[in-house]
């Protein structure tokens, strides 16, 4: 489908009261991915398949998306934010540390004729207090902490602090016990919505295999 077809579908789709999962996935498939992913930031594009299902669940099962203010921490090329906006969130804010990723995110957002604001900032150090109270839901596919140990938990903690209600995030299954322990410490409820297998294609020169399979939990954390 060319850009024109996608533009019409996206804007028509947003005005539909009910958007089907397949339609959402179709639009996400046409988005531009990372051109030169940076391994030290653990960059890879969230697959349209996963992004569509993650947001569709947040929307149709938990009503955390429509008419809500939604922030995307580590938004990369904007896949999750775009899926959220297409499902009816009233305001989307995507935050990332990489300007070239945000440039792609901006392109993707414009091509879908959506209004999403992007912010170039370091989630681990930027003071997010001013966002507290404003953000209903945080959605994210944060770095797993493979390259920068502990960064996954920093993202999670910050997301919890900023969100009024729910956080949807992806974490390595191998860290599950640790995440659950932290959730108890923070006095929040952590639900494992799905167990997934991630196929991350070889983007990093250090990998010997052509792709890496990682087991990942999709979590929903509520205050």
């Amino acid at each position, binding site marked *: 489908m060319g850009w024109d077809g996608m533009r019409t579908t996206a804007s028509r789709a947003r005005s539909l009261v009910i958007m089907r999962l397949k339609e959402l996935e179709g639009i996400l498939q046409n988005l531009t991915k990372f051109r030169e992913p940076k391994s030290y930031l653990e960059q890879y594009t969230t697959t349209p398949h996963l992004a569509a299902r993650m947001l569709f669940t947040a929307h149709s099962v938990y009503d955390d998306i429509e*008419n809500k*203010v939604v922030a995307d921490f580590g938004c990369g090329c904007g896949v999750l934010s775009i899926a959220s906006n297409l499902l009816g969130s*009233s305001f989307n804010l995507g935050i990332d540390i990489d300007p070239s990723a945000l440039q792609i995110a901006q392109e993707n957002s414009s091509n879908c004729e959506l*209004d999403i*604001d*992007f912010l170039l900032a*370091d989630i681990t*150090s930027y*003071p997010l207090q001013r966002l507290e109270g*404003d953000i209903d839901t945080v959605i994210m596919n944060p770095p797993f902490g493979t390259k920068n140990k502990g960064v996954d938990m920093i993202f999670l903690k910050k997301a919890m602090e900023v969100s009024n209600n729910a956080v949807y995030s992806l974490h390595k299954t191998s860290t599950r016990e640790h995440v659950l322990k932290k959730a108890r410490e923070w006095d929040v409820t952590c639900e494992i919505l799905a167990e997934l297998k991630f196929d991350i294609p070889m983007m990093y020169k250090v990998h010997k295999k052509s792709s890496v399979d990682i087991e990942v939990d999709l979590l929903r954390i509520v205050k």
Partner: protein
Amino acid sequence: MRLITHNMLQCHVKGCNTNNFPLNLSEAEVEIQETEFNAQFLRNMLPKLEWSALVRTAVQLGITNLPQVVPNTAGQDLEDLFLRNLHHVLLETHIQQGKMTCPNCSHVYPIKDGIPNMLLNENEI
């Protein structure tokens, strides 16, 4: 970046803890992009906004028709007028290029192609 986002930004240079918000806009290139009006969203958002900061920022862009205080709009017509104006200022006014300067420490954060850059050098964090 729209004004709704600008209303959430502050300076975070090490030691800059007071009077670090709102960031002063200058050399701003503004673009108006129409978007769907959602009265309920605006009503919900209203108590969360830093109103005087928003008014001050709007004035920096030459927008002077926001009231100094949020009006207590008794009549339906007045409320609709106020919300439509707020919608235009908050959600349709995009700053594509410009500079944001901290009123306290004068650090400058650039806005490039609609994206505000809040990154700092290592020695500034």
